[in-house]
């Protein structure tokens, strides 16, 4: 099944046992989700980027509502903004993007929604993966990039870079794997201009938050 990067990213953080989104760094994941949507649009030839700007080359909807919402926003903008601007704007839409992605995964029967009750009146939604093969295949491709010296495919580069930006590798790899693959992760992560901006935005938001708490 051909899933978007944003869908794969969400699947990687769903805890199979609890059905919860197991997120080590929620802010980083939200910024990475925004970046994932931009990367998906880029891989589908809807947008293109260089070091200074991001622009629409084809405004035909992709059929994926999470991607099409952001595509429409970019298309509506009169001037070409930088990648960093768009990562930040997409990050602001992260809750909506996440909900749309989860709804899409439910529709595709990749996860099953469950409602859990807490103290009789609080409802929590959980998502049980229904197809472990998809998650296994996603992880296998990540491992291939990290531990095989072959030139990686663009989509795999993007996935590795997003996992790095969202700080997911400590949960995906053993300590030994993490240590041995660190140089490769660094090499692959910088190959995508969009994920470079994702990391910059994460840094900026954290800096702004620490300044705000200081004052």
């Amino acid at each position, binding site marked *: 099944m051909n899933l978007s990067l944003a869908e794969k990213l969400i699947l990687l953080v769903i805890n199979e046992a609890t059905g919860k989104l197991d997120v080590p760094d929620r802010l980083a994941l939200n910024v990475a989700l925004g970046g994932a949507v931009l990367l998906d649009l880029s891989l589908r030839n809807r947008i293109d980027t260089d070091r200074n700007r991001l622009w629409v080359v084809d405004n035909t909807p992709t059929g994926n509502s999470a991607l099409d919402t952001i595509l429409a926003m970019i298309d509506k903008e009169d001037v070409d903004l930088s990648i960093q601007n768009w990562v930040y704007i997409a990050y602001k839409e992260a809750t909506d993007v996440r909900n749309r992605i989860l709804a899409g995964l439910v529709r595709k029967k990749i996860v099953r929604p469950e409602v859990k009750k807490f103290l009789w009146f609080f409802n929590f939604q959980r998502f049980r993966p229904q197809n472990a093969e998809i998650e296994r295949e996603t992880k296998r491709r990540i491992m291939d990039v990290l531990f095989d010296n072959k*030139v*990686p495919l663009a989509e795999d580069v993007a996935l590795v870079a997003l996992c790095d930006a969202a700080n997911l590798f400590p949960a995906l790899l053993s300590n030994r794997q993490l240590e041995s693959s660190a140089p490769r992760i660094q090499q692959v992560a910088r190959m995508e201009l969009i994920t470079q901006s994702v990391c910059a935005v994460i840094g900026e938001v954290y800096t702004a938050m620490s300044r705000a708490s200081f004052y």
Partner: protein
Amino acid sequence: MTETTNLSGKRLNIDADINDGIVVAQVDGRVDTTTSVEFEAGIQALFAPEHRQVVLDFRGVDYVSSAGLRAVLLLARAAEEANCKMKIAGMNSDVRSIFEVTGFQKVVPVFDDVATALNAGS
């Protein structure tokens, strides 16, 4: 034997000189979303078993976008699978800087000019 192939497009032109298993492909124009498919197809056609080395002469390339970089990545993988050495020579400073920022020069060897690329061996 020298043979010249012209794979012309509207915004991209590729001329290939093939000599004794070594291909020098002169690329002119922009490599972006509008030309990346044509660029990929044109260069990939040169990865034949009898071509052990393909040097992309980028002197005429004035711009490479993210889509262009992805095309280069795909070609690097295709060259690897075809057991063919792909190199890039003669990039202008803007194109070179995008290769440096993204670390692409570690995926595809980059040289100042075609002669240096050819002398670097296969």
